[in-house]
């Protein structure tokens, strides 16, 4: 929408930072100095990998989280807590299962203390607008995922928010349902029938961002920053098969896989540190991807968007795979392309035992955490070590969730490589007894 813009932006995020454990010395940044302004009449997309802090930013804007530093200004005044005129749609729908569709929709109005008649008429209007007519008295569990998210939308729209926040609103839906809902929403927006001025949506789906948004902010992770900003020049309705549309999707892929300056993206740094966060990626998937890449038509090299489409994976699912392969030096990822290294080709051709040996060697060489665990076990007289000590050390470098994920990953990779074994009951690493 290219409407003329008001003098002051609707919303301003001014150098907001968000961190865990702000009180202690080892501060962990989730958001780093983010600046953002939203004008009336635009749809802005926050695009990034999971864990890049985009959902955190959305919650800061919603007033659900107070930023550690910086401030959010809403209609020119400082935001302190959830405010009038901002409503949110959740990834998980967040419907109250004990309230009917209508009661769910009326919840926000009830909180505002509106009289029953007004609540009724506004809820009626929102329910009809979003295509839920006839479902008033149904409970959420009777509805399909798509209908549930419509309830989520109606519940947010009924309070007539100036700014509608959406947190990956279509990612819990199947492909067809998500597409219908996106189109419906964009149609209503184009016809100016939505009672909102602007929308801010979080997504990890590149095509979705290009399809819906007027402006896309691409996030980089660790810590979360806005890496680049893109204007989407196409008018609604947009055609996914349009050459310019495809080109833009490709460009964003390239942008998101571009090798970053060594400080901010540790995974590709020359020597990964002990405290590098690992994404839980299964070794089966890694092996499968290497096999696929080694075979025709790819023959060792593939364009990521095309590969994602062929494998029916979303960017958010494919990129961690590529990164894991890059970390282990089985592949290189750059400018939207993935290329198998010699090691990767040999891995794809090898039998199970050779693969395990190669994987073990790669872990020792390129994953300091795995190498450290192995080394500690070798040094101990009983070849045992509590996982707790590694957990403690990791917590100096990352948030508890990341510690959990990283440890989980390093356990599963180490098990596959038979580098060490792990006893969940005792929470203990040990060396495999040779028997």
């Amino acid at each position: 929408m290219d409407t003329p813009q008001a003098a002051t932006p609707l919303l301003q995020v001014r150098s907001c930072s968000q961190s865990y454990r702000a009180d202690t010395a080892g501060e962990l940044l989730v958001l780093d100095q983010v600046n953002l302004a939203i004008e009336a009449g635009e749809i802005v997309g926050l695009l990034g990998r999971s864990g890049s802090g985009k959902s955190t930013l959305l919650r800061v804007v919603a007033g659900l989280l107070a930023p550690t530093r910086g401030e959010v200004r809403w209609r020119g005044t400082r935001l302190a807590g959830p405010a009038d005129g901002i409503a949110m749609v959740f990834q998980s729908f967040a419907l109250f299962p004990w309230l009917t569709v209508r009661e769910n929709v009326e919840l926000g109005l009830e909180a505002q203390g509106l009289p029953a008649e007004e609540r009724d008429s506004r809820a009626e209007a929102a329910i009809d607008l979003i295509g839920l007519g006839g479902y008033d008295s149904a409970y959420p569990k009777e509805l399909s995922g798509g209908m549930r998210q419509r309830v989520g939308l109606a519940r947010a729209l009924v309070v007539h928010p100036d700014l509608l926040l959406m947190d990956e609103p279509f990612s819990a839906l199947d492909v067809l349902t998500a597409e219908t809902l996106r189109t419906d929403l964009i149609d209503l927006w184009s016809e100016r029938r939505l009672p909102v001025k602007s929308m801010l949506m979080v997504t990890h789906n590149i095509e979705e961002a290009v399809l819906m948004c007027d402006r896309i902010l691409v996030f980089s992770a660790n810590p979360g920053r806005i890496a680049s900003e893109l204007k989407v020049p196409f008018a609604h309705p947009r055609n996914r098969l349009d050459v310019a549309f495809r080109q833009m999707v490709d460009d964003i892929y390239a942008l998101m896989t571009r090798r970053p300056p060594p400080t901010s993206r540790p995974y590709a740094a020359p020597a990964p540190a002990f405290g590098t966060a690992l994404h839980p990626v299964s070794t089966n998937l890694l092996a499968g991807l290497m096999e696929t890449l080694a075979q025709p038509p790819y023959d060792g090299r593939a364009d990521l968007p095309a590969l994602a489409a062929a494998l029916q994976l979303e960017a958010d699912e494919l990129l961690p795979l590529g990164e894991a392969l890059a970390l282990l030096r089985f592949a290189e990822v750059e400018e939207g392309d993935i290329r198998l290294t010699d090691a990767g080709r040999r891995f794809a051709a090898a039998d199970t035992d050779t693969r395990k040996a190669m994987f073990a060697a790669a872990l020792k060489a390129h994953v300091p955490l795995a190498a450290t665990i192995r080394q500690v076990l070798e040094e101990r007289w009983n070849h045992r070590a509590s996982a707790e000590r590694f957990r403690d050390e990791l917590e100096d470098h990352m948030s508890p969730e990341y510690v959990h994920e990283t440890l989980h990953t390093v356990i599963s990779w180490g098990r596959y490589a038979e580098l060490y074994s792990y006893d969940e009951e005792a929470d203990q690493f040990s060396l495999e007894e040779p028997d």
Partner: protein
Amino acid sequence: MSSSAYTAMAARRRLPNAWDFVAAACVLGALMAIVPAVRGTFAPIAAAGVTSIHLKPALLPYYAVRTTLRMFAALAAAILFTFTYGTLAAKSRRAEMILVPLLDILQSVPILGFLSITVVFFVDLFPGRVLGLELAAIFAIFTSQAWNMTFSFYQSLTTVPADLDEAARSFRLSAWQRFWRLEVPFAMPGLVWNTMLSMSGAWFFVVASESITLGSHTWTLPGIGSFVALALTERNLRAIGWAIATMLVVILLYDQILFRPLVAWATKFRVETTAGAPVPEPWVLALLRRTRLLRLASRAVGVLLDAIGGLRLAPRRMPPPRPSTSSQFGDTIWLVAVALAVAGALWRIVVFVSAGLTFAAFGTALIDGCCSLLRVLAAVLISILIWLPIGVWMGLRPRLARIAQPVAQFLAAFPANLLFPLVVIVIVQYGLNPNIWLTPLMIIGTQWYVLFNVIAGAAAFPGDLREVAANLQVRGLLWWRRVILPGILPYLVTGAITAMGNAWNTTIVAEVASWGHTTLVARGLGAYIAEATNQGNTAHIVLGIAVMSGFVVILNRLFWRPLYDFARRRAT
């Protein structure tokens, strides 16, 4: 059937129908029964016939209503307590530090031991009035109901799903609205289930608390418990039979009228993504939903509650939680205050103990505790040995399980103390050793908890796993060891914990049993407390209770909780 189908069906009927008359009769009957009973409560003691219980069967309905009213008065108090205590514990970090462990201890204190002390307190509060006695009985029942309800509520409050919490906050519900729209509904399934368990347990205490002897004084309240107590001293077997029959009817009624509908209704508050298997609709709920008059009445109540819940009683502007605003200073002050209070309490205990107790008494209590422990363990073990195979057998047959499950729950609600005389007669008749043969008394009440939990576990056992076991021809002992036992272990442990708690309480009434002038005593902590109560020896009562609580807490911490955690980890 969906709820919209109900509305459509009900809308077609405008005129009162046969169901309306049935319902009207029920409501009127209930009203008539309650009014005279309430009048009796506020009468002076002499007029209420405190000591004049008559063994006439015709009086039993009146006694039954009195007993039931006490139950519900206590329940109301327990719910109020749950909402306040649970909320405070969940909302305030500092209160949580104290309240949760306190609750844990309260949960393991044998309520019956306290009875004598609270009676004196309440009777002094309202001298010469029945009200004091009533309150004492109600308080005893309350203490048997409140703790697990509160725990359940507290746990629900601390596990409210993050997305619902964010939705409530982003739409700026006030604290009051949030409580009624989010927190109470979310806690409802657990709360209803625990209320049901509480009520089942409480029948036992209501019967025990109506006739209280402390030293030379005996206080009696009109009710089924007093009726049975009198029948016992008069050796009137027929009267006991009538009382048992009345109790069966009362429990059946409350089960059918209150809890079946309540449990079915509570399923709508379950947070689940898919529509579950349809639950058969209890007849009372059908009556409420299908009958025009009752539906209007219940809707009026619903609208009223809705309006109360929707009130914006608290300020809506809630600041977002600042990460790590824990003020070290405030914590220190708080901890110092708590430490001072604890020190004061300890001092009181030392003074109290040194005045009335010796080391020898402590030793006796400990040894008695070990005797009771053996008895309790035996009771639980025997219950498991008998009911585990039967429960598994029934649970794996869905149709049988559907019938057996509510029956077992019903039997668990039946106050086992009403059946004690029958066992006592047998022991007296055959001159059996009470140290051993009073143990079955504890099994009578505890076995059902094992049974219905095992049935539930076996019924929930995944069908595909059973098929795999059959396919691999896993049979006999191997099947028990590798397939079904690990599969139902969490349920079995839950059942055993509940049974054990129940058994400890039972010791106080089961280790001393009388029939006319014959009194049978088994050595144990329960008998110790009962004897101290008879002598009015407060110091010994407190010692007995403290030792018993200690046993329960230690067993729970060192044995049951680790076992339960283990079972949960393995089975999920």
